[in-house]
């Protein structure tokens, strides 16, 4: 399968890349890991006339903590997040997700920024970042701005990025004391998109009561979804079996799957319920210092 012809640019800086987006508008596409874009180009479902390769821009791939957040450079590969000791030690929600995205070979190329900007409801990072209450940094002609994740996913394959903006960084709030997280994915086989997946982030106070709760759902709606009523069912509650069951039921109700080759909608909705309950139990266990 041969993609259509395109003109190829290799900018050395973000402003140079933004300039190319301004010049070529919607006929230009950004190339990060390329593991969504290139398959689409080979199938000729995408045929951009101009391809702007971000891979030669220095300092776009990093994983580091500052005072408030884990800062992840947009060009960071999934495999680098999977291998990061910092992520493994302090961000279990992210660590769980990084190791189940596609397959190990794809994870060596695919990037977190590209995955989020692609805004595929089947992208694992979307559900993770909704649960983690992340912020997206977008850089355009007027500099950088921050987009709260709740406003980022507009529709299927449509994000809040302007046509001349580049997603340059993801900021994940640092874990609170008594914090825990988990990401569970049901897939037919390694490398497939999720039948359903659920990301959870929560914090327990000294009495074992849930403070902040974040729940994100993958591939069960037109976008990555935040299960707000499920979160509300746990906030201020002790995460006992009854409260977890109520939250899991709420998440299932809030999901909006369609039946396809991965199963009928009722099945997927029920898997959201099961995965939400399991992810919550695992996150609580981790918050208490286990697992």
């Amino acid at each position: 399968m041969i993609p259509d012809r395109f003109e190829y640019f290799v900018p050395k800086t973000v402003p140079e890349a933004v300039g190319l987006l301004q010049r070529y508008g919607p006929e230009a596409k950004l190339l990060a890991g390329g593991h969504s874009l290139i398959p689409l180009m080979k199938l000729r479902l995408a045929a951009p006339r101009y391809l702007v390769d971000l891979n030669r821009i220095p300092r776009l791939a990093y994983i580091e903590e500052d005072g408030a957040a884990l800062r992840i450079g947009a060009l960071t590969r999934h495999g680098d997040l999977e291998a990061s000791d910092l992520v493994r030690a302090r961000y279990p929600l992210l660590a769980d997700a990084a190791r189940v995205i596609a397959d190990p070979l794809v994870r060596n190329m695919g990037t977190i920024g590209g995955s989020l900007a692609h805004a595929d409801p089947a992208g694992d990072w979307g559900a993770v970042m909704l649960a983690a209450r992340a912020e997206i940094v977008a850089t355009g002609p007027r500099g950088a701005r921050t987009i709260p994740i709740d406003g980022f996913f507009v529709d299927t394959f449509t994000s809040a990025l302007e046509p001349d903006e580049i997603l340059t960084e993801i900021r994940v709030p640092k874990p609170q004391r008594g914090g825990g997280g988990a990401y569970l994915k049901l897939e037919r086989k390694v490398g497939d998109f999720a039948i359903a997946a659920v990301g959870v982030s929560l914090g327990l106070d000294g009495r074992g009561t849930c403070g902040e709760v974040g729940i994100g759902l993958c591939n069960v709606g037109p976008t990555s979804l935040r299960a707000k009523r499920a979160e509300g069912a746990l906030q201020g509650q002790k995460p006992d079996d009854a409260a977890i069951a109520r939250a899991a039921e709420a998440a299932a109700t809030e999901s909006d799957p369609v039946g396809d080759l991965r199963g009928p909608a009722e099945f997927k909705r029920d898997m959201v319920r099961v995965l939400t309950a399991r992810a919550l139990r695992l996150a609580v266990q981790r918050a208490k210092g286990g697992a």
Partner: protein
Amino acid sequence: MAQRISVTVNGTTHEAEVEPRLLFVHFIREVLGLTGTHIGCDTTNCGACTVLLDGRPVKSCTIFAVQADGRAVMTVEGLARDGALHPVQEGFHEKHGLQCGFCTPGMMMTAYALLQRNANPTEEEIRWGISGNLCRCTGYVNIVEAVKYAAEKVRSQPAAAGGRS
């Protein structure tokens, strides 16, 4: 439209004029004539086209040749040295780690990279490591045995572990 690229493959630097849309696997097979790298699914699923790009195993059907400009690549042809099989190749031979052989080059490149990182992998780590490489003959049991064999050989003879990258 054509762009000049310079890519070091198995230790030899090649210069070529390529169209930007040329996929890296086509560059390897058709421009360089290194047909050991196979095209299986052509849809980023099977891993038959796996090569090492700056030491990391990637699917060469999902990269443009222009992206490899200035970088170091290793293909299956880079495994053997001076006519001697690499321990990974020897393992696939000794343990019958192939049936039709189509997935084998990609499987071996992934195994090579796995052993570079971890010369003493558990069976689960091997299975996890090759989970992006599909064997349609479902010969995974012997493939895992082959990688175990190679791991032992690499541990006992570290000098044999390198290839030509």
